[in-house]
C-alpha cells in the first residue's frame, strides 16, 4: 500500500510536465498553451508540497523499486524547482505575450518555447529524485540540451553565441562529471559488486570501504564537472552569456534552479566522499572554489554594462556562498547553505523578472540607459530594489540569514583566512552591485518615459517572490525549518536522516 502511494506520488510529480508538453504540441494556440503551462507548473507545485509534507513526516520516499529515492535534500531542491517553475510559468505568459506583440517571436517560437519549458521542468524534476547517479547525470546533461534550445529560441547573434559557448563548455564539464561518477561506481563495485552499485543508496552504504585515492580523484572530477554546470569559478565563464541571452523566464529558471540542480550533484558526491575519507578533503576543495567564485564575481560586477549579466555574476557569487557553507560544514554552515539554496532561488528569479520587465519598458538592457525606475514603475522598482538588497545580503531580507549562518560557521570552523577574504569581497560586491542598482532605480527618468506598470501578470510573480524574500528574512515556518534541518542532517550524517 505504502509503495503504491509512493509510486503514485512520484508518478504524479512527473506526469504534469509530460502531459503539458504533449498538450502544447497538440494545441498550438498561443493563448491556451500559456495557461496550460501555468496549470502544469501549479500541479507540480501542489504535488511537490505534498511530497514535502510526506518527507517531513517520514524522511524518505522510495518508488518504483529503487529507481527513485527522495529524501529531505531532494525535497529542498524539488521545492525550489516547483516554486520557481510556477512563478516563471506565470511570468512567461506576460513576457512571451509582449515579445510576440513586439514581433520578436512568432507563433512557432512560442510553441517551441512552451514545449521546451515543460520538458525543461521535467528534466530538472528527475535530477533530485533519481536514485541512480547515472540517470542523474543523464538528466543534468538533458537539462543542458533543453536549455540550449531555449536559449537559442531567438536567432539573434548573441543568443547563438551564448548557446554555443554554453553547449560546449557545459558538455565538456559534464563529461568530467560522468568520469567522476564512473570512478565512484568503480570504487563501489571494487568493494561490493552488487545490483545497486550505481545507486546513491548503495553507494553511500558502502562508502566507508572506498579507496581513498580513488575517491579523491573522483571528487575532483565531480567538482570540476558539476561545478562547471553549477557556475563555480573559474568554470563559470558560460554563465553570464547564457543567463543574459536567454528569454527572461528561462534566465530565472537557469539561475534560480538549474544551478541548484547541478550543485545538488556535487552535494551528493560530497556526502559519499565525506563518508569515505572524511569531510576534510572535499571541504577544502569546496572552500577554495567558493572563495575564487566570490572574488571573481565581485570583481566582475564592477564593470558590467548589462543588467542581466550582472545578475548572472551575482549567481556565481551565490553558488560560491552555497559551496562555502557546505565546505565550512558544521550544522550551522550546512543549514545556511541549504537555506541559501532556497533563498537564492527566490531572490534571483525576482531580480530576473524585474529586469525583464524593466528592459521591456525601457527597451534596453544596458544599465546606462535605465534611470528612475522608481518613478516610472514604482511597484516593479520597489520589488527590484528588495530583490537587489536581498542579493547583497542586506537584512531584513532572507539571504542575510543564510549568509550569517555560513559566515558564522566559517568562524566556528576556524577558516579565518577564507572568511576574511569572503567578508571583504561580500562588502565589495555590496558596493559594486548596489552602485549599479541605485543608479538604475533612482534618479530622473528621461522625459518620454510614461509612468505605467507592465501588467498584473508581470507583477504577480514578482510580488509572490518579493513577499517570500521579506518574510523568510524574519520568519521561517517551523515545517520548513524541520525540512532544512533534516536535509542538513542528511549531509552531515553521511546520507541518512
Amino acid at each position: 500500500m505504502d509503495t503504491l502511494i509512493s509510486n503514485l506520488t512520484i508518478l504524479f510529480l512527473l506526469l504534469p510536465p509530460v502531459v503539458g508538453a504533449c498538450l502544447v504540441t497538440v494545441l498550438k494556440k498561443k493563448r491556451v498553451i500559456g495557461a496550460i503551462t501555468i496549470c502544469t507548473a501549479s500541479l507540480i507545485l501542489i504535488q511537490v508540497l505534498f511530497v514535502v509534507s510526506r518527507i517531513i513526516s517520514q524522511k524518505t520516499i522510495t518508488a518504483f523499486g529503487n529507481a527513485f529515492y527522495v529524501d529531505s535534500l531532494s525535497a529542498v531542491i524539488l521545492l525550489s524547482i516547483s516554486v520557481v517553475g510556477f512563478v516563471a510559468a506565470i511570468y512567461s505568459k506576460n513576457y512571451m505575450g509582449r515579445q510576440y506583440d513586439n514581433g520578436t517571436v512568432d507563433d512557432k517560437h512560442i510553441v517551441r518555447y512552451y514545449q521546451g519549458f515543460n520538458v525543461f521542468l521535467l528534466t530538472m524534476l528527475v535530477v533530485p529524485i533519481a536514485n541512480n547517479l547515472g540517470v542523474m547525470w543523464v538528466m543534468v546533461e538533458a537539462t543542458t540540451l533543453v536549455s540550449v534550445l531555449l536559449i537559442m529560441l531567438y536567432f539573434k547573434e548573441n543568443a547563438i553565441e551564448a548557446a554555443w559557448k554554453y553547449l560546449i563548455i557545459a558538455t565538456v564539464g559534464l563529461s568530467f562529471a560522468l568520469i567522476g561518477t564512473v570512478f565512484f561506481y568503480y570504487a563501489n563495485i571494487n568493494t561490493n559488486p552488487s545490483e545497486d552499485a550505481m545507486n546513491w543508496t548503495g553507494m553511500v552504504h558502502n562508502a566507508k570501504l572506498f579507496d581513498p585515492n580513488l575517491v579523491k580523484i573522483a571528487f575532483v572530477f565531480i567538482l570540476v564537472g558539476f561545478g562547471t554546470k553549477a557556475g563555480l569559478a573559474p568554470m563559470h565563464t558560460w554563465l553570464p552569456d547564457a543567463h543574459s541571452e536567454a528569454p527572461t523566464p528561462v534566465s530565472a529558471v537557469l539561475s534560480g534552479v538549474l544551478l541548484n540542480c547541478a550543485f545538488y550533484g556535487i552535494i551528493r558526491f560530497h556526502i559519499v566522499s565525506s563518508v569515505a575519507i572524511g569531510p576534510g578533503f572535499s571541504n577544502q576543495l569546496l572552500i577554495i572554489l567558493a572563495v575564487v567564485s566570490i572574488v571573481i564575481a565581485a570583481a566582475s560586477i564592477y564593470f558590467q554594462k548589462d543588467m542581466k549579466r550582472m545578475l548572472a555574476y551575482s549567481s556565481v557569487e551565490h553558488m560560491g556562498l552555497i559551496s562555502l557553507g557546505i565546505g565550512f560544514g558544521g550544522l550551522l554552515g550546512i543549514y545556511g547553505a541549504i537555506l541559501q539554496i532556497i533563498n537564492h532561488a527566490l531572490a534571483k528569479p525576482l531580480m530576473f523578472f524585474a529586469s525583464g520587465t524593466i528592459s521591456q519598458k525601457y527597451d534596453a538592457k544596458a544599465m546606462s540607459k535605465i534611470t528612475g525606475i522608481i518613478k516610472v514603475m514604482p511597484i516593479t522598482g520597489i520589488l527590484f530594489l528588495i530583490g537587489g538588497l536581498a542579493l547583497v545580503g542586506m537584512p531584513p531580507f532572507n539571504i542575510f540569514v543564510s549568509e550569517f549562518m555560513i559566515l558564522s560557521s566559517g568562524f566556528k570552523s576556524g577558516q579565518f583566512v577564507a572568511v576574511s577574504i569572503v567578508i571583504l569581497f561580500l562588502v565589495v560586491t555590496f558596493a559594486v552591485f548596489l552602485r549599479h542598482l541605485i543608479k538604475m532605480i533612482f534618479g530622473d527618468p528621461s522625459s518620454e518615459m510614461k509612468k505605467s506598470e507592465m501588467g498584473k501578470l508581470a507583477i504577480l510573480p514578482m510580488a509572490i517572490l518579493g513577499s517570500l524574500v521579506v518574510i523568510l528574512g524574519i520568519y521561517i515556518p517551523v515545517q520548513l525549518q524541520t525540512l532544512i534541518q533534516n536535509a542538513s542532517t542528511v549531509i552531515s550524517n553521511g546520507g541518512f536522516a
Partner: protein
Amino acid sequence: MDTIQFDILTISGAILLIATFGIVATRGFMDWLNAYRYQSIVLSGVTAIIGYVTGIWEIYIAAGLTLVIKSIIIPKVLTYVTRKLEIEFKLETNPYVSIRASVIISALLVALSYFLIQQIPFKSDQIVNAYLPVSMAQFFIGLFVLVNRRTVLSQVVGLLIIENGLFLFAMALTHGVSLLIEIGIFVDILVGILISSILLFRISRTFDSLDVGKLENLRDD
C-alpha cells in the same frame, strides 16, 4: 596467457592513442572526420576486446553500436551539415599552437595522465590498467583540441574525442554500467551532436563564418 592478453590490451590502447594523435595532427575538416572515423573503428575493436576478455555479451552490443553510430552515422551527419554550408571552412588556418607543437603537447598530456592515474590501485584488473590512462589521455587531448582550435567544427571534433575517451573509460572501468544508462548516455551524445549541428548551421548563417573568433561579442573587457 595473461601476459599475451595484457600485451594485446596495451597494444590496442597504443593504437587508439595513435589514432587520436591522427586527429591532432590533421588540418582540414574532412581529414579530421576521417581520422575520427578510424579512431572510432579502433575504439569499437577495443570494446570488442574488452567484451572478449570479460566475457560479457552486452559489451559486444556496445561495440556494435559504437561502430555504427560513431564511425558511420556521426560522420555522415557532419558531412551532411557541412555540405550545406556555403562558406569556406575546409582548412583551418591558424590554431593557437602549431601542429607540431600540439603533437608534442599531446604526448606530454599522455605522460601527465599516466602520472596522475598512477596512485589508483588497479588490483589485478588488466583492462583498467591498460585502458584507464589511455582514456584519460583522450580527455586531455580532446580538451586540448578544444582549447587550441579556432573553428566551430574543430570544437565539435574535440568534443567527439572526449566522448570517445569517455566511452572507453566507462567500458574499461565498469565493463558496461548497465545497458539502459549506456543507451541514455548514447542518446544524450547523439542529441548533443544534433543540437551542435543545428547551432553550426545557425552560426554559419548568422556570422558568415565558422571561426570562433567571431563569437566574441559577449565579453567583459
